[in-house]
């Protein structure tokens, strides 16, 4: 399994904004492990396959992380350092599409802060036109760890941005990296 929680990048404004989508599929194992069916004496709870909030946050972290990494040509090791806010008010279910929009609020040598909007495109409940509906926001902070850990040394190779994210940018057709 690849640790990829976004499927395609649909828009990139370098250093400012990146939009990515994630398709939620019944074929994904984690949906079944999250709220599996339970039976016990006198009760029963049916299985509730949902996209876990923790992985929605990871999806936004990857969206915003690629934006911040791309801004510096992927030279910096961009580490998620703080979830400043994470509020999502509707569940994402199999068949839905999550759309993550990350925007840079501030960025300097030490790190970056980003503002994120989470939208849901549902085949059944977001209208016949399939317009995205805003379901929450996730604001994050990233550290450029080589410049921000009191002189601690890290490996010289960039272990944050493997080829996977560069491939994603390339295959999405938004950037040559």
């Amino acid at each position, binding site marked *: 399994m690849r640790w990829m929680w976004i499927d395609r990048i649909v828009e990139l404004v370098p250093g400012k904004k990146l939009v990515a989508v994630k398709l939620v599929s019944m074929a994904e194992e984690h949906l079944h492990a999250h709220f599996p069916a339970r039976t016990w004496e006198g009760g029963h709870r049916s299985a509730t396959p949902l996209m876990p909030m923790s992985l929605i946050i990871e999806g936004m972290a990857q969206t915003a992380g690629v934006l911040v990494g791309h801004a510096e040509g992927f030279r910096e090791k961009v580490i998620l*350092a*703080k979830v*400043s806010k994470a509020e999502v008010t509707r569940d994402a279910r199999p068949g839905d599409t999550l759309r993550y929009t990350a925007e840079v*609020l*501030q960025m*300097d*040598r*030490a*790190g970056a*802060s980003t503002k994120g909007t989470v939208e849901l495109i549902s085949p059944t409940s977001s209208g016949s036109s399939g317009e995205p509906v805003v379901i929450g926001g996730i604001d994050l*902070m990233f*550290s450029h760890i080589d*410049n*921000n*850990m*009191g*002189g601690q040394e890290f490996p010289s190779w960039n272990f944050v941005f493997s080829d996977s994210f560069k491939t994603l940018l390339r295959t999405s057709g938004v950037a040559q990296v």
Partner: protein
Amino acid sequence: MTHDEIFTTIQALLVDALAVDEEDVTLGARLTADLGAESIDFLDIVFKLQQSFGINIPQGELFPEGLSQQADYVKDGKVTPAGIAALKARLPHVDFSKFEADPVAKKVAEVFTVETLVRYVERKLQQKA
């Protein structure tokens, strides 16, 4: 901006950055020991100060890194008088009077209080004017 206006703005941004209650953000509250700030929170605070007051804060000017690890300034785990003098010169917005009584190097981050931020912003706004 008056001292009180600066304090009120800083109070609100610390409530947001550190998820603390407004009444805990007093002038004397220490960012680390009292309000639970960790290393990344210092960057968050710098970003929020820049945004709220329209000032530019070069890295290390408000919160220098690695203070307790500078060998020239530390002897037997304590910051030397020469070290404290150097810190005072570099950080004119910081009050070192309490720290001087027991200058344990590992506790040097405790000199950063809410008042430190207010004083720093006051100086920056004066320079800008």
